[in-house]
């Protein structure tokens, strides 16, 4: 087999044992790698109705055939489990050197089963697990953990770690690697924390053969050159921070917990402004020619702080919380990375609490001198820290906006801005209707990355304010495209560099694996992967009513922006969702008929 090892490393944390499980070639051909392979493994290794924070929930790190090929942007891996935040599939991507280390030490995936007795540093040394006491690492930030692990084991290991948030099982805790990269969404750090794995240290020397080495080298040169062209210009220069000023102009910049879609001080925190006044350098993942990461530095009189910044962190701690001080936002994002928390869910949950404060609803723990007001940002950093350590009000906010609103009551669920429990990213769905549909139907909850719905809304290929029949097709094709992208795995920021995504990707896949897949087959892989994600959710209790949007989005007209008064009614959303089900070949209730499962080769999973 080329491109793949044909096996995955399974480590039992309770028994301190390991084994290789062998994967048939047809599984790779069906699910590719990354998110696709990880979804297959999750379906197989996670027993039905598993409690997310229990021994039965596996934690899966899946690589792909492209890892190790040196093709630009392909040093990526997927992390999967059942999400403690949503109760559905958790699939997150991260990147850089750890991807290469995982593939050289763990085969095509690492699967962690059960739970270590105490906090453990798990060293995977070329396929062999070594269990080490991690009590000295407990309480350390992700950055300090990585450094300490390397000091202890050696500079040749690559590290994945959790911070205090993961240790404390904050439901949106992340897993960090390579100096601040994060598998951020859905609470995978909480799963790792529950398993008492403070850090993974990975090194190995296993290699996979490449089918056509010369061909891959030619392809590498070609795609690298394209990656430096106009199709990636935005990401190489301002990065995603560029969205702020444009989104504000278009009236799609969620502000004050989605109460508005424009932010009056957007200029103060725009990407252009941050780039001029706070930019320090670009950062690159391994094997990446784009370098989308912008490292910013604070400029006020406080302690100097340096951190990564991208749009979602900027939006979540900026307009969403009504904060217009760039230094505070840089510090909040950095603090989240240190504690190991998803910036989107963290900012959105704080914004929910701010609105509670605004509406006079008291929250337990608010009596500790914390002023959570949209008018006052001085306590933002303190609140982020309290969440990571689950202290005071942070203990409630660590649960995410959905659960916190259920506990607090007072109709605060009406401004808990989540889908399936996952907080919404920085796109206003009332004036981005394809994105609205994407948020509602995506298996992992409110996610912009798994549907790419904004792509259609912001290109003019559809009317972003309207609802029409084409919307469903656009959502399906965007979702399938993304599934292939996330499974091979290419970085999303490379997407405009392809002449024809499926043809170009099939060519690369075949040069590496020799499996002779066609572009059309690749497209079906995307469909299959999305169906399997849905199948997992159905198995775990998904209902039609889960494919919806927050109360505010469906009941409050947008008050500002270029089209004030624009609405998205329940009826309009239902029309789009039902159209999406039809396009998918599902029943009107959103279930997958057996004929569709047979068509996609998923029927064998049902037998098991």
């Amino acid at each position, binding site marked *: 087999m080329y491109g793949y090892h044909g096996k995955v490393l399974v480590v039992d944390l309770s028994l301190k044992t390991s084994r290789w499980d062998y994967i048939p070639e047809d599984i790779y051909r069906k699910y590719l790698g990354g998110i696709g392979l990880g979804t297959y493994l999750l379906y197989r290794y996670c027993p039905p109705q598993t409690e997310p924070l229990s021994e039965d929930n596996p934690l899966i790190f899946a690589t792909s055939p492209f890892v190790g090929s040196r093709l630009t942007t392909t040093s990526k891996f997927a992390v999967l489990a059942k999400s403690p935040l949503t109760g559905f599939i958790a699939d997150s991507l991260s990147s850089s050197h750890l991807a290469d280390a995982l593939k050289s030490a763990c085969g095509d995936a690492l699967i962690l089963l059960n739970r270590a007795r105490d906090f453990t540093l798990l060293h995977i040394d070329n396929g062999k697990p070594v269990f080490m006491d991690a009590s000295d690492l407990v309480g350390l930030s992700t950055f300090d953990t990585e450094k300490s692990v390397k000091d202890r084991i050696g500079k040749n290991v690559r590290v994945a770690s959790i911070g205090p948030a993961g240790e404390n099982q904050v439901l949106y805790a992340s897993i960090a690697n390579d100096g601040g990269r994060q598998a951020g969404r859905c609470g995978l750090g909480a799963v790792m924390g529950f398993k008492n794995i403070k850090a993974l240290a990975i090194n190995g020397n296993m290699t996979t053969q490449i089918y056509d080495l010369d061909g891959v080298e030619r392809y590498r040169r070609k795609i690298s050159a394209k990656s430096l062209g*106009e*199709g*990636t*210009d*935005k*990401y190489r*220069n*301002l*990065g*995603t921070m*560029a*969205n702020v*000023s*444009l989104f504000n*102009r*278009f*009236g799609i910049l969620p502000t004050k917990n989605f109460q508005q879609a424009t932010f009056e001080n957007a200029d103060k925190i725009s*990407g*252009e402004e941050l*780039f*001029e006044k706070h930019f320090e350098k670009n950062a690159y993942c391994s094997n990446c020619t784009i370098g*989308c990461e912008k490292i910013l530095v604070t400029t006020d009189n406080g302690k100097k702080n340096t951190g990564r910044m*991208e*749009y979602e962190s900027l939006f979540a701690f900026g307009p969403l919380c009504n904060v217009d001080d760039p230094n505070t936002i840089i510090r909040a994002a950095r603090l989240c990375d240190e504690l190991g928390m998803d910036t989107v869910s963290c900012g959105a949950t704080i914004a929910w609490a701010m609105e509670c404060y605004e509406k006079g609803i008291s929250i337990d723990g608010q009596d500790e001198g914390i002023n959570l007001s949209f008018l006052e940002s001085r306590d933002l950093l303190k609140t982020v820290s309290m969440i990571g350590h689950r202290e005071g009000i942070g203990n409630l906010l660590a649960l995410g906006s959905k659960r916190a609103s259920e506990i607090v009551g007072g109709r605060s669920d009406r401004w808990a801005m989540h889908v399936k429990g996952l907080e919404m990213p920085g*796109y206003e769905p009332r004036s981005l209707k394809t994105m609205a549909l994407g948020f509602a139907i995506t298996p992992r909850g409110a996610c*912009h990355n798994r549907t*790419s719905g*904004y*792509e259609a*809304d*912001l*290109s*003019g290929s559809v009317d972003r304010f309207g609802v029409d029949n084409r919307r469903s097709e656009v959502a399906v094709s965007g979702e399938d495209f993304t599934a292939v992208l996330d499974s091979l795995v290419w970085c*999303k*920021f490379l997407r*405009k560099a392809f002449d024809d995504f499926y043809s170009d990707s099939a060519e690369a896949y075949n040069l590496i694996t020799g499996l002779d897949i066609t572009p059309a087959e690749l497209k079906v892989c995307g469909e299959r992967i999305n169906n399997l994600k849905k199948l997992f959710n159905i198995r775990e209790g998904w209902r039609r009513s889960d494919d919806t949007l927050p109360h505010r989005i469906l009941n409050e007209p947008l008050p500002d*922006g*270029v*089209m004030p008064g624009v609405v998205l009614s329940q009826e309009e959303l239902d029309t789009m969702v039902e159209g999406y089900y039809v396009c998918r070949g599902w029943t009107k209730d959103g279930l997958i008929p057996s004929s569709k499962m047979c068509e996609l080769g998923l029927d064998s999973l049902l037998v098991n």
Partner: protein
Amino acid sequence: MNPENVPLVPVTVEVYGTLRLRTKRKYLYVEIPQVCDRHNLAFALSKVCPDLVGIAINNEGTDIKDTYVINLNGLKFLDGNNFHVNSDDSIILLSNQAGG
């Protein structure tokens, strides 16, 4: 490129992101025919702001590059063929690399 004897209307062109950094401008003011196309717009812009040539406008100054999208007043995306503008309109020139 802009035909003679056709009445021109003044419009504002807003630039964002990389274009704003490279041109050091947020707004550009151009005069274009009331019934306009991407070629008229590119020609007018290349005269007012030559820095855009090679970035958002082709090297000949005759067309908006495919990697950029044109929007009218934040409301409507234009395909570049025969669009109608009024004197108080804003044309937004944005990268086709949406979101992130």
